[in-house]
């Protein structure tokens, strides 16, 4: 018996010491320094790519067919994911609000309205953008990084075609357009599932009218504006990581994850900034 305990204790001790060691490795001064440096490098590089892309968007040649092809691929690939995820999200929002509002205003009549506000202003655009990062962004990164690894990007340059113009611009425009379309579709799906889950309490007419009381044109414009701003994040981050991927399958895999994680992080930061700015503007307008 004591033998078992000794062995177990030793195992636990070793595990703990190793965890502590690794945790320390993660937060050494050097670690923080190199992380910060990489953060600055990535932010700078991403901004440069964004500016390059915006600069090249209005410049000929316009590859309309390529844009259309990308838009169809993006939309078609991610539609099922968006429908399923936003469908669940619509129901979750209603359930959660049932719980929360019943305790605060002791009245479930307004749940559709608040759910609508949250969907339009917040969860619709952000969740759609995050899902696009996972589905579409990962694809972009993998495609471009494998093109880079097989010298196809170099070949483009040698044929005097600007890789950013040829690869990034169509993907940028297509993703932006699809982000708006998918946000609208996603919010519509969430509306339907939210209605279904609050079934016995509301009929369609009353659900719609309650929502109409709360959700106005400005919320819809908010949805579109956020979709446009957040939609720019995914293609830029994904292509950026594709262009700077390392060699081999490992390089491609790492670039893909970095692209996805960075996209979602930037989406959150940008969304926060938009909210703060909007809040301040609202304050000024009211005064």
């Amino acid at each position, binding site marked *: 018996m004591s033998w078992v305990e000794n062995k177990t204790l030793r195992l636990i001790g070793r595990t703990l010491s190793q965890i502590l060691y690794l945790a320390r490795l993660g937060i050494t001064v050097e670690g923080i320094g190199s992380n910060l440096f990489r953060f600055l490098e990535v932010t700078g590089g991403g901004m440069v790519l964004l500016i390059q892309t915006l600069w090249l968007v209005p410049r000929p*040649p316009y590859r309309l067919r390529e844009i259309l092809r990308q838009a169809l691929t993006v939309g078609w690939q991610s539609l099922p994911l968006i429908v399923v995820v936003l469908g669940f999200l619509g129901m979750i929002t209603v359930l959660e609000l049932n719980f929360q509002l019943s305790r605060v205003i002791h009245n479930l009549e307004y749940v559709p309205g608040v759910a609508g506000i949250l969907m339009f202003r917040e969860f619709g655009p952000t969740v759609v953008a995050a899902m696009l990062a996972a589905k579409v962004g990962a694809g972009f990164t993998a495609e471009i990084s494998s*093109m880079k690894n*097989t*010298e*196809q990007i*170099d*070949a483009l*340059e*040698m*044929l*005097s*075609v*600007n890789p950013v113009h*040829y690869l990034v611009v169509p993907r940028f425009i297509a993703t932006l357009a699809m982000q708006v379309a998918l946000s609208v579709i996603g919010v519509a799906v969430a509306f339907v599932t939210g209605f279904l889950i609050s079934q016995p309490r509301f009929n369609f007419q009353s659900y719609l009218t309650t929502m109409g009381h709360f959700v106005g044109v400005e919320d819809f414009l908010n949805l579109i504006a956020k979709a446009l701003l957040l939609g720019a994040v995914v293609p830029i981050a994904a292509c950026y990581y594709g262009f700077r991927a390392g060699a081999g399958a490992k390089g491609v895999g790492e670039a893909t994850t970095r692209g996805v994680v960075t996209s979602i992080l930037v989406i959150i930061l940008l969304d926060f900034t938009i909210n703060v700015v909007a809040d301040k503007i609202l304050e000024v307008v009211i005064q």
Partner: protein
Amino acid sequence: MIELRDIGVRFHQAAVLRGADLSVAEGEAVALIGPSGSGKTTVLKTAVGLIRPQAGEVVLAGTNLTRASPASLARVRRQVGMLFQGNALFDSMTVLENIGFVLREVQRLAPAEIQSRVRQFLDRLHLGEIGGLYPRELSGGMKKRVGLARAMIGEPRVLFCDDPTAGLDPITSDAIADLILDFRRQFKVTLLLVSNSLLVVKKIADRVLLLHQGRLLDLGAPESLQDSERPEVRQFLQPEFTS
């Protein structure tokens, strides 16, 4: 036509080129030999401006690439064709689209004209019926020919070939060498060729350079290679003699 002066290139502290000099006259064909990993591809990519050297100057077709703006770089590159070591064919495009890429995206020709010019080219390369295939459906020799066709269809004045016969059997290698020679005669291109196949080098090149410890050594005409007394050349060629 191609001038590299005192080029230094390093990747993460490891110096690959250290004071490499190279000068290729108009119409000349120069071969670059050297062991794997010595930096032959790096020399080629530096010469066309894909790699920016940390030191030295590159002059290609009269333009100094180290100081060139993106626009003038693009202008120079229209006179330059490059066959990459791994072919770098666009794998989302068919053979026809790959070869016609420059005509479509840069010269902006009408589809019918692109079609006829690409077909003409394919016939020359004895590639007849593969226009609709994708790169992954081709054999190594076919890919090389398609890569060569894509480099040559814009009728460049300078052609860079990175190991055009790597991994090919002797007969196919010879056919590719003939093709390059053919292009050289017809279009009067200046040629910078990387190859470690002495057969190909002897067939195509007027002059041979050896890349040794980050520098380029001029070895003169390919016929004189065997008689060279320089130790690094003998060391490099030794296995061929013994086998």
